[in-house]
């Protein structure tokens, strides 16, 4: 009865996970559908690795070890290969970030227009150090390479939206608006 050996091994592995009913890393049907749609554009599944990471991160905010394993299993791509991509690309997060990630453009045109000063101002407004997330868990500030909006410098990207021709007052307004939005959300 050697054919029973294989399922037994698998069962042992499954027991090592917390709760098989609700694996923390398991991909949702929605995530899988989106990944499948992208995967159909390529010759093989390993090509869709980055897009899969991006899609799942959109729902979960960041890529945990469990999530990485789940994507690896779903695509049948080695976790190490997926990890090499996940750690390479700047828009993929391997640690938790705030609900709003501020990408402040730090490239030449924005530097001429005072992005360093604005960066300092954001640190002070949010009471954070470089790379940190604000205590309320809402904001993470990251430095972005050129965001390609140089005639409207200084600029930042928040979510999928660009904010242009910034000054200190505009930054304060933006932070206030987002704080209020998240406060209203938590009341609902």
């Amino acid at each position: 009865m050697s054919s029973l050996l294989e399922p037994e091994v698998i069962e042992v592995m499954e027991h090592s996970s917390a709760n098989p009913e609700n694996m923390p890393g398991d991909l949702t049907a929605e995530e899988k559908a989106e990944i499948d749609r992208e995967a159909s554009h390529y010759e093989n599944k390993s090509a869709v690795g980055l897009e899969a990471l991006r899609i799942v991160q959109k729902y979960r905010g960041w890529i945990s070890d469990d999530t990485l394993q789940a994507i690896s299993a779903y695509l049948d791509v080695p976790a190490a290969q997926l990890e090499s991509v996940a750690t390479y690309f700047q828009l993929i997060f391997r640690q938790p970030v705030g609900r709003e990630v501020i990408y402040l453009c730090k490239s030449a045109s924005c530097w001429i227009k005072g992005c360093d000063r604005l960066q300092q101002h954001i640190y002070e407004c949010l009471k954070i150090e470089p790379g940190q997330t604000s205590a309320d868990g809402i904001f993470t500030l990251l430095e972005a390479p050129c965001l390609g909006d140089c005639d409207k410098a200084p600029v930042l990207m928040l979510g999928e939206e660009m904010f242009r021709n910034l000054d200190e007052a505009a930054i304060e307004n933006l932070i206030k608006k987002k704080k209020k939005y998240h406060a209203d959300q938590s009341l609902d």
Partner: protein
Amino acid sequence: MLINPLTKNVTDQNVAADLKRYLGNGGYEGWRKAHTMAPDKIIDLVKDGGLRGRGGAGFNTGLKWSFVPRGADAPEQKFIVCNADEMEPGTFKDRLLMERDPHLLLEGMAIAAYAIGASIGYIFIRGEYHLAAERLEHAIEEAKTQGFLGTDISASGFSLEIFVHRSAGNYICGEETALLNALEGRRAIPRAKPPFPQVSGLWGKPTVVNNVETFCNIPHLVEFGVEWYRGLGRGEDAGSKLFGVSGNVKNPGTWELPMGTPIREIIEQHAGGMHDGLRLKGLLPGGGSTDFLGPEHLDLRMDYDVIGRAGSRMGTGTIIVLDNQTCPVGLVLNLCQFFARESCGWCTPCRDGLPWIVKILQRIEAGEGRSEDLDLLREQCQRIGPGNTFCALAPGAAEPLQSALVRFEQDFFNHIKQHRCPYR
């Protein structure tokens, strides 16, 4: 005759020209005409038109296409790839084309695909360009419903699918072989050349990678021909180009102008000149990885070889202006920080050399520079220069630095002598 083929559908409104408007304004005529031509003839036409790659390198586009193997022995599967990973510091032209006139890019890619025999195209777009990616995807759907993309287009037997690939932020993906690795789902590290992508590219198949603006030049070049296209330029080079200016000028922006438009005209007429009270101290003619030019170069024409002979590069054609109240050492430090951060880490001169340069520049900017630092920086520029690295990233990083060390030498000296940044 048409003089603004790249932006004729761009209005003041931030909306994309939809298929109806695009067709109403003569859209897909180049694609229709291309169908009636032999692929070889299209390649010859693009070559003779003198279109040079608008991503920065300025290589003749038709010549690039002609390296793709043809005939019975050639691999059947070929790819066309659009480099939409616009991330060169100070460059903001491809965003405009993709957001406002996505069909122009699709039409250009379709003609290129037909010319080289590719049946699949990818638009490799940086992850931050959300709006552009959405508008392109919408345009692809529109083009499919009208039969401009899909299977057996116009009953010609030619099929083409175009897909949008969203990347996730890395400057090096602009290097075409790094881009291909990323598209295959790997780390974006440049490949050794040869073989060139035209022979062995995506998944080892013949692949042509062109910049967004390059593709956007194709439809009208095919529709109106070589004579018209060459006539668009005012100097040595053919066609028109998106030029841009950023920095402390009155009216920063992007404009479609003839190739060969003098720098002075771009900065003074279109960008409105310097802010009151400021003087132009220098300029980077084509993005962050080009050598500084100075006020004495203002009357040069923006043509690839003209700017090349002056010791710099046309690059992306988007000018960063340095004024007399902005610290050149600080600007160069900012650029080197960008390149150090964006190095893929594959080869030693780039991975280790750039952070070293950043450290030296940081101490000079902080007033802790040493007298031997300038020689050290010059030596580093040599060591990360052409021939010593795997790709052009580090040599590109050396360009603004090496030219600043000559042009703004006094500023570097002053930092070291005064033990502070004189601009603060």
